[in-house]
C-alpha cells in the first residue's frame, strides 16, 4: 500500500468538474500551494475541473492559492468562515457581482461539521449561531434548558492538504500551526491528496507522533521546497 505518487499532475488527475474540494490551511499556514496551482494549471490548459465547491476557512488572499482558483473562474461556491483577508478582491469582486456562491459557516461549526463527516456522524447540535441569522431554517432543540442548532456533516470528494512528514503508508505529521483543518479534512473526503515536505519509509514516524493515521490518506506527493502562501504574498507574488 505505497501511496506515493510520482507527480503532482498524476495525483490530481481525476478531480472532476463540480466536485467538492476541501483545502487545508488557515490563511497561508498549511495552504497546499503546489497542489492548488497544479489544479489551476490543469484548468487553464484543459478547462477542467471547473464549477468546484471549495471548502476552506478563508476565501483566498492576493493572487495565489485559492484566490488564483477563484481568479481562474473554476470555483462556483466557497464554504468558509472568514472570506476576508489583506487582499480579498478575487472573492469579494465576484461575490458582490453575484458570480460566486458563499456558504458562511462559523469556524468551530465548520471544523465540527468536517469532523462529523469523517466520523460518520450525520448531524449534531451546537450552541453556535442560536438566535442569529446563520441558524435560520435549521432545526433547533433544547437540551438541559439551553437552545442548540442542528448542524449536518460536511464531506467532500477530494481533500488537498499539506503535511510535514508522510510515510509511504500515509501516516502524517504537520508543521506547527499549519495543522489546523488538515487532519479533519483528511477524514472527510473520498480521496485525500497530500503534499508532504518529506516522504519517509514506514516506521520513519514514531507511532505516538502520528497526527493523521494512514487510513485517511490516499495519495502523497513529495514537495521538498513547498512555497508558503503568506511569505509569497509578502514578497508581492502574483502568479
Amino acid at each position, binding site marked *: *500500500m505505497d501511496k506515493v505518487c510520482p507527480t503532482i499532475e498524476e495525483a490530481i488527475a481525476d478531480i472532476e468538474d463540480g466536485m467538492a474540494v476541501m483545502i487545508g490551511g488557515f490563511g497561508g499556514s498549511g495552504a497546499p500551494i503546489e497542489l492548488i496551482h497544479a489544479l489551476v494549471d490543469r484548468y487553464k490548459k484543459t478547462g477542467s475541473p471547473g464549477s468546484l465547491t471549495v471548502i476552506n476557512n478563508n476565501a483566498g488572499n492576493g493572487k495565489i492559492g485559492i484566490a488564483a482558483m477563484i481568479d481562474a473562474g473554476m470555483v462556483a461556491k466557497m464554504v468558509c468562515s472568514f472570506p476576508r483577508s489583506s487582499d480579498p478582491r478575487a472573492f469579494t469582486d465576484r461575490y458582490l457581482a453575484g458570480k460566486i456562491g458563499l456558504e458562511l459557516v462559523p469556524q468551530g461549526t465548520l471544523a465540527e461539521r468536517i469532523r462529523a463527516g469523517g*466520523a460518520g456522524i450525520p448531524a449534531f447540535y451546537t450552541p453556535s449561531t442560536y438566535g442569529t441569522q446563520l441558524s435560520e431554517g435549521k432545526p433547533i432543540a433544547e437540551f438541559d434548558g439551553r437552545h442548540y442548532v442542528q448542524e449536518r456533516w460536511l464531506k467532500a470528494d477530494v481533500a488537498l492538504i499539506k503535511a510535514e512528514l508522510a510515510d*509511504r503508508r500515509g*501516516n502524517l505529521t504537520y508543521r506547527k500551526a499549519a495543522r489546523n483543518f488538515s487532519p479533519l479534512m483528511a477524514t472527510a473526503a473520498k480521496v485525500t491528496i497530500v503534499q508532504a515536505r518529506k516522504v519517509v*519509509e*514506514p*516506521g520513519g514516524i514514531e507511532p505516538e507522533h502520528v497526527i493523521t493515521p*494512514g*487510513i485517511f490518506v490516499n495519495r502523497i506527493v513529495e514537495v521538498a521546497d513547498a512555497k508558503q502562501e503568506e511569505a509569497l504574498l509578502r514578497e508581492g507574488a502574483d502568479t
Partner: protein
Amino acid sequence: MTAKLTNAQIAWRAAQDLPDGYVNLGIGFPEMIAKFKPEGRDVIYHTENGVLDFGESPPAGEEDWDLINAGKKAITLNPGAAFFHHADSFAMVRGGHLDVAVLGAYEVAENGDLANWSTGPGSVPAVGGAMDLVHGAKQIWVVTDHVTKKGEPKLLKECRLPLTGVGCVTTVYTSLAVIDIVDKRFVLREKLPSISLDELQAVTGADLVANKVGDLIVPEL
C-alpha cells in the same frame, strides 16, 4: 451429517478473501484470520482501542500490556503503525474507512441482521465495539459454525436474539459454506463438496439461493 470445517479452516477460508486494505478482526474467533493471511496480501489491521497496523503476538514473556488489541491480547507493531484515541478510532469505524470488519455471530438473518451480543436476560450483556463495527466497514463478514452446539440453524429467516445491527452482514463463512447476502437472500457461493445442497438447506433456517455454487476446499489445519 458429514464432516465440517474446524474454526481454523473457517478462518483460513475467510482469510483468502482479505482485500489489500484496512481490516478489523473482532475479538475471539475472528482474530484467528490474521494467521492465514495469504502471502503478499497487504492488509493493515485496525483495533478499536487505538492501534493501526499491528502485527503478531509477541513471544510469551515479552508482552507489553500497554500494547494490546481489543481482545486485550498483547500485540506488536509493524513499521508504519499509529496510535490514536478512542474517538478517532471509532471515527475510522463509523466513518466508513475500514474495508472489512469480521465478527462472530449467535444468529444471522437472510436480510443481513446480526445477533451477537446478548443471549437474553439472566446474563451480563456486553456489546463492546460490535454495534459500531456493523455500521462502519464497507463489508461485514461473519465467521461461525453453521449450526449451534445443539445442531440448530444459526442462519435464519429472522433473528430471535437481540440484534447487534440491522441488515449489515455481507458474507458468512461457516463450517459448511460461504454465503453472500444479496438483496436480503442467502446466496450460496461455496459449499463443502461432501455435503449435498439438500443437506445444507436442512441445517439452514432460510432458503439458500444456489445458482452458481463452487466447492469449499480448504487445507488440513
